[in-house]
C-alpha cells in the first residue's frame, strides 16, 4: 500500500478550490442584492451571517458537484485540473466535505437567521446536486435550463433572510437569473463543443447542433427583454433600473443576433465569446443598478398588483 492510499494529500488550497470560488462570488453578489432590496430591515451583523451561510451553502453544492462529476470533469480541458480529477482530493473527501458544509450552512442559517431562508437554501443545494448534477445533467439537453434554476435562487434566499417569508416580488429576481443562464452557458458551449462531446454531456450544441443553439440563444435573448422588466413591475425596482435593463437587454439581443448571423469560421467563435463575456457584464450590471437605486434613494415603482386592487 502506498503512502498516498493511507492519508489525504490535499492542501488547504485544494479544498478551497472544491468550493468553486468564482461561482460563489456571483452567488454572494446576487444574494446580497436580494437582501438589500427586501422590505424591512435586519441587523447588519445578521445580514452578514446570512450572506456567509449562503456562501458556504453554495460552496457545499460546488464540492458535491465536483465529487459526482469527477469522471466527466477529467475529460474536459476546462475542468480537468479540478482537485478531484487531478487526484489531489479523493472523491470520498469531496463528498464528506460537501455534505458537512451543506448541513452546517443550513443549520446555521436556520438557527441564526430564520428557518424559511434555511429551507430555501437546503432546497437549492438539493436541487443543484440531486436534480441537476446527479439526475438531469447527463440525461437531457435541457440540463442547463434546469440547473440554472438552482443558480437563480440566491437573491430569493437573501430576500427571505430579511422577510422570513416567500414573496412573489423576490421571484422576479430569480426569473431574471433563470432566463439569463441558458444563453450565457450556450454561448460558452458554442466554442467548447468538443469538450462536452468528449465527456458525453448532452449539451445543446452536441445534441441539436450549433445552428439550433444559436436559434435558442436568440429566443432566450428576446425573452430577456420583458423578463428583465419584471422587477420594475413587481415593486422591486424603479426608473433607473427600467432604463438600464432596457438598454442592457437590447445590447444582449443585438449580440445574440450577431451570434445567429455569423455562424461560420472565426467570426462565429468571436461572436460567441463576445456574447459570453457580455452576458457576465449584463448580469452584474443589472443587479448593480438595483443597488445603485437604493444608494441614491430612487424608490421602486408601485407594484402592478396595486392597480388591480
Amino acid at each position, binding site marked *: 500500500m502506498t*503512502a*498516498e492510499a493511507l*492519508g*489525504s*494529500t*490535499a492542501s488547504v488550497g485544494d479544498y478551497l478550490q472544491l468550493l468553486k470560488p468564482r461561482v460563489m462570488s456571483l452567488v454572494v453578489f446576487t444574494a446580497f442584492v436580494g437582501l438589500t432590496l427586501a422590505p424591512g430591515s435586519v*441587523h447588519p451583523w*445578521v445580514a452578514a*451571517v446570512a450572506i456567509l451561510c449562503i456562501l458556504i451553502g453554495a460552496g457545499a453544492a460546488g464540492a458535491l458537484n465536483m465529487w459526482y462529476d469527477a469522471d466527466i470533469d477529467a475529460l474536459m480541458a476546462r475542468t*480537468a485540473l479540478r482537485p478531484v480529477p487531478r487526484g489531489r482530493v479523493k472523491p470520498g473527501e469531496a463528498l464528506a466535505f460537501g455534505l458537512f458544509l451543506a448541513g452546517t450552512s443550513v443549520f446555521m442559517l436556520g438557527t441564526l437567521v430564520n428557518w424559511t431562508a434555511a429551507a430555501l437554501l437546503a432546497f437549492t443545494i438539493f436541487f443543484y446536486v440531486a436534480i441537476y448534477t446527479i439526475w438531469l445533467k447527463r440525461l437531457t439537453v435541457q440540463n442547463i435550463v434546469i440547473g440554472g434554476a438552482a443558480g437563480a435562487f440566491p437573491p430569493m434566499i437573501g430576500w427571505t433572510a430579511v422577510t422570513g417569508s416567500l414573496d412573489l416580488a423576490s421571484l422576479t429576481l430569480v426569473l431574471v437569473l433563470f432566463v439569463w443562464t441558458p444563453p450565457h452557458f450556450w454561448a460558452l458551449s458554442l466554442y467548447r463543443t468538443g469538450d462536452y462531446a468528449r465527456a458525453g454531456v448532452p449539451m445543446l450544441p452536441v445534441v441539436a447542433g450549433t445552428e439550433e443553439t444559436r436559434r435558442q440563444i436568440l429566443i432566450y435573448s428576446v425573452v430577456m427583454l420583458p423578463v428583465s422588466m419584471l422587477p420594475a413591475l413587481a415593486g422591486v425596482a424603479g426608473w433607473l433600473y427600467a432604463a438600464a435593463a432596457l438598454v442592457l437587454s437590447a445590447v444582449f439581443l443585438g449580440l445574440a443576433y450577431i451570434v445567429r448571423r455569423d455562424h461560420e469560421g472565426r467570426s462565429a467563435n468571436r461572436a460567441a465569446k463576445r456574447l459570453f463575456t457580455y452576458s457576465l457584464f449584463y448580469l452584474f450590471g443589472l443587479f448593480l443598478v438595483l443597488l445603485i437605486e437604493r444608494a441614491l434613494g430612487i424608490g421602486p415603482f408601485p407594484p402592478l398588483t396595486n392597480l388591480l386592487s
Partner: protein
Amino acid sequence: MSGESERGVLRPEEQERRRRSRSIAIALALAAMAVLFFITTIVRLGGNVADRTF
C-alpha cells in the same frame, strides 16, 4: 500535461506539512464558528438581555 507531475506520491514530510495546515484550518474555522454563534446570540437578544424578570 501540467497536472501529471502533481500526481506523484508526495514525500512524507510534505504530507505531514499538509496535514498540519489542514488541521490548523479546521481549528480556525471551528473557533470562528463559535465566535460567530456567540456574537449573533448577543446581537439577536439585544437589549432584551437586561429586561429579564426573575
